[in-house]
C-alpha cells in the first residue's frame, strides 16, 4: 500500500495553495467487466503540461483507465475531475470535444479527406471554415505533410506513419488543453515509430498540453513520460518519474518489469549531470543522457561532448549506478 500512501502524499502536496490546481484529478476509480475487476481503486493527479504514461502489460487495465477519462467507458466507482469539475456534470460529447484523442488504429474517417478529418472537431465546435482551413494547413505543415499535396487525399492513400500524423493533427486541431493517446505508435514499424516519436516529442503544439498516453513499450514510456503510472491487474504498482521507477522500485513487480531492459533504461535515464562533477562537463549540456553522450563519442551521432573518453564516461556511469543502489538500500 506504499503506492497509495505515495499518491495520497502527492495529493496533499498538490493541495498546497501555491501550486497550480491539477488539470486532471482521478480518485478511487473502479471498473468491473462482469466479475473481472479491470481497474481497481486508481487515483492520480496531473498538473498542466505534464505527460503521464500509463504503462503495464497487456490487459492491465490501462486502456480502460484512459477511456474513463473521456467517458468512452463509464466507471463503476470513483470520480474523474477535469479542472476541478466532475466529468459527469457535462454531456460526454462536450467533454470529449475539449480533449484530443488518438488511438492505435488511428480511425481516420475513410470517406473524409485528410483536411476534413483534421477539421472534424473544430466543425463540431462550430468554428469558422476559414479558421479551420488555416489551422489545418498549419498543422499539416508542422507535421511534415505539405498541405498542397496531402490535404485533399483520402486516408487510404497515406502510409501508416502519415495516417498517424494526421490522427495526431486531428486530435490537436481544436487546440485542446488535454490530449489522450492510446498506443499511438503501436501499429507502426520500429523505424517509422522512432521517427514519429521524435517528432512528437519535439512538437511545439504538445509542449503545453497535458497528455495521458497509454503504452506497453517501456522505452517509449521512458522517452516521453514526465511521470509513469505502472499498472498490473488493474492496480497501481507505482506512480513516479522514470527515474523513480527505475531506481526506487516500490515492489518486486516494478523491479522485474524493467529487468530485461534495465541497462538500456539506465543509460537513457542518467544524464551527464548525474554521473560527472561539473569540471568534467565544460561546455557539454548537463541534460544529455549517458546514452546520447556515448553515441556522440562513438561517432554514431553528432554533438558536442565534454573532455572525457568512453572509458571515463562508463566508469562514472558505473559509480553513479552504485550511488543510486546504495541510496535505495538505505
Amino acid at each position, binding site marked *: 500500500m506504499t503506492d497509495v500512501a505515495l499518491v495520497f502524499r502527492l495529493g496533499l502536496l498538490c493541495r498546497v495553495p501555491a501550486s497550480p490546481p491539477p488539470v486532471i484529478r482521478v480518485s478511487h476509480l473502479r471498473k468491473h467487466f462482469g466479475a473481472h475487476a479491470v481497474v481497481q481503486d486508481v487515483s492520480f493527479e496531473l498538473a498542466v503540461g505534464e505527460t503521464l504514461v500509463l504503462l503495464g502489460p497487456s490487459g492491465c487495465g490501462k486502456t480502460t483507465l484512459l477511456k474513463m477519462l*473521456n467517458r*468512452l467507458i463509464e466507471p463503476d466507482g470513483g470520480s474523474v475531475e477535469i479542472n476541478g469539475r466532475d466529468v459527469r456534470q457535462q454531456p460526454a*460529447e*462536450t*467533454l*470529449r*470535444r*475539449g480533449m484530443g*484523442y488518438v*488511438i*492505435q*488504429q*488511428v*480511425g*481516420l*474517417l*475513410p*470517406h*473524409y479527406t485528410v483536411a476534413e478529418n483534421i477539421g*472534424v*472537431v473544430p466543425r*463540431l465546435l462550430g468554428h469558422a471554415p476559414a479558421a479551420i482551413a488555416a489551422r489545418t494547413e498549419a498543422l499539416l505543415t508542422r507535421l511534415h505533410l505539405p498541405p498542397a499535396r496531402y490535404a485533399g487525399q483520402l486516408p487510404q492513400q497515406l502510409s501508416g506513419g502519415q495516417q498517424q500524423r494526421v*490522427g495526431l493533427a*486531428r*486530435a490537436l486541431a481544436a487546440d485542446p488543453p488535454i490530449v*489522450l493517446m492510446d498506443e499511438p505508435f503501436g501499429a507502426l514499424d520500429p523505424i517509422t515509430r522512432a521517427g514519429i516519436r521524435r517528432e512528437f516529442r519535439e512538437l511545439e503544439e504538445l509542449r503545453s498540453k497535458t497528455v495521458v498516453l497509454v503504452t506497453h513499450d517501456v522505452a517509449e514510456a521512458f522517452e516521453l513520460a514526465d511521470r509513469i503510472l505502472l499498472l498490473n491487474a488493474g492496480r497501481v504498482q507505482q506512480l513516479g518519474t522514470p527515474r523513480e521507477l527505475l531506481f526506487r522500485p516500490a515492489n518486486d513487480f516494478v523491479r522485474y518489469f524493467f529487468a530485461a531492459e534495465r541497462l538500456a533504461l539506465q543509460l537513457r535515464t542518467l544524464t551527464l549531470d548525474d554521473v560527472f562533477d561539473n569540471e568534467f562537463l565544460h561546455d557539454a549540456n548537463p541534460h544529455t543522457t549517458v546514452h546520447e553522450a556515448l553515441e556522440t563519442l562513438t561517432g554514431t551521432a553528432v554533438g558536442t561532448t565534454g573532455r572525457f573518453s568512453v572509458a571515463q564516461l562508463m566508469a562514472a556511469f558505473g559509480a553513479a549506478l552504485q550511488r543510486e543502489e546504495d541510496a535505495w538500500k538505505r
Partner: protein
Amino acid sequence: METLTALFAFWHEQAGKLGEQTVQHIGLTAASLLLAVLVGVPLGLWLARRPRWAPAVLGGAGVLQTVPSIALLGFLIPLLGIGAVPAICALFLYALLPIIRNTYEGIRGVPPAVVEAARGLGMTNGQVLRQVELPLALPVLMAGIRTAAVINVGVATLAAYVAAGGLGEFIFGGINLNNPVMILAGALPAAGLALAFDALLGGVQKLSARRLRQAGAALLLALPLLAGGYLLPRATGKLMAGFSPEFVGRADGLPGLTKIYGLTHLPSVVLAPALVYEAAHNAHVDVIDGYSTDGRIRAYGLRVLRDDRRAFPPYYAVPVVRPALLRAHPELRTVLAQLDGQISDSVMTELNYRADYLHEDPKAIAAQFLKQRGLWRAPRPAVAGEPVVRLGSKIFAEQYILIEMYAALIRSQTDLAVETKTGLGATNICFEALRSGAIDLYPEYTGTGLLVLLQPRPAVVDSLGGRPAAVLNYVRTEFRRRYGLEWLAPLGFNNTYALLMRGPQARALGIASVSDLSGYLRQ
C-alpha cells in the same frame, strides 16, 4: 422474326394498356420499396445496436422470404381483400429481408476503430450514425435496396392476380391463352423495369458515401414520385368489374363482349381466376366473368346474366366417342342416350356446388342424380373376360360427375366392365387419348371442339354465329371427317363464359341480361 412482328403489333394495339400497366408496375414496386426502406433501414440500425436480436429478426424476415409469393398473397387476401393493399403488403414483406440484413451488415462492417475515434472526438450518437456509420454502410445498404427492387419488380407481376394491375396482366393472360407473344409483351417490359430500377439505384449508390444526404434525399423523393403513378386517377364507373386474365385476353371474352354489346363505362381490374368469385362475393367488384355451371354461383348467390345476343360461343357438353366402340357394342348407344338433354344449367350448377363446396363424392352425386331421374339400377355382377369401356375426363368436378353417371349406367345395364380415367388434364390430353384409343369416351364442349381443337378460319366461326345447333353440327361433321370421332347428343347444359353479378344487386338494379347491364351503364 414473326414473333417480333407480332409483339410490336400487340404493343401498338395495346399501347394504352401497356402504358397503364407499366405505370402501375412501377407504382407497386416503388411504393412497396419505399415502405420497406422506411421500416427496414431503422430496423436494421436498431439491430446493429442490439445484435442479440439479429438472429430472431433476420430469421423471421428470412422465413417470410421463403413463403412462395402466390401463397403469401393467398394469406393476405382474407385479411386485406384484393387490390393494391395486399399486393403492396406482400411486396413490402419480400423487400424487408435484403434491406434489414444489408443495413445491419453494413453498419456492423464499419471498422470499430473509426466509430471509436469518432465518438472519442466528441460526436454524438446521432452524428456518428449520420456522418460515419451510414455513409460507410451506404454501399452495402444500397446493394440491399437494389436486390429488393429487382425482387419486387419480379414479384409485382403477381399483383395481377389480386386486381392490383401491373404487367402481370399480360403475362398471365398470355399463359392462360398459351400466347407467347402476349407473355413477352408483359415479360419484356418487366425485365426492362428490373434493369432500370437496378441502374437507377446503382446511380444513387455511386453518389458515393460523401453525399449521403443527396443519396437519401434522391431515394426518398424518387420512390414516392414513382409510387404516386399508381394513384393517377383511374377510370371509375357505376360498377366495377373483375376479370380473369384469360377472359380479358381472348377474342371471344371481353373484347367480343365489348364489341357486341357496346359494353362501355365498365372499368375493370384483372385478378386470378380462382379469386374472381370471392371478389364478387365480398363486393370488391360487382361484375365478374365465370363459367355458367360453376358451383360457386350457387354457393355465393350470384346471378348469371343472360347472354341475349350470344356473344359467348356455345359450350354445350356432349359425349365424344370412338365409333368402333358403338359398332362393337351397339346396345351402348341407347344406354348413353338416356342422359341426352337431361341436365340443365341450374342442375349442373347444383351438382358442381355439391362436389366443390359440400365436398361430396362425385360417384355419390352421380348415383343420387340417376335415382332422382329413375335411371338408377344396381350394377350387374362382373363377368370375367368381358371387354372394358374406358371413360376419360378432364380434371374438374363437372367431368368427374358426368363420367360417373355414364359408368353407373353402363355397369347396371350391360355386362361390360368400366374403367374410369379421371385426371387427364387439359383438353388436348383427353383428345389425344381418345384419338389413340387409350380411352373410348369423354365429355367435350362444343365451343372447345370448335375453337381449341378444330380452330377453323375466323370467317367460318363468324358464319356459325354462335348458334348452338350450327356449332354442334359443324364440330360433328368435321370430327367425323378429320378424326373419325363421333359427337353424340348434347347433355343439355351450356358451360360457357358468363357475366355474373351478386344476386341481390342485380335484382335491385333490374339487370338480368348483358343487354340490361350495358343499358344500365350507359344511362
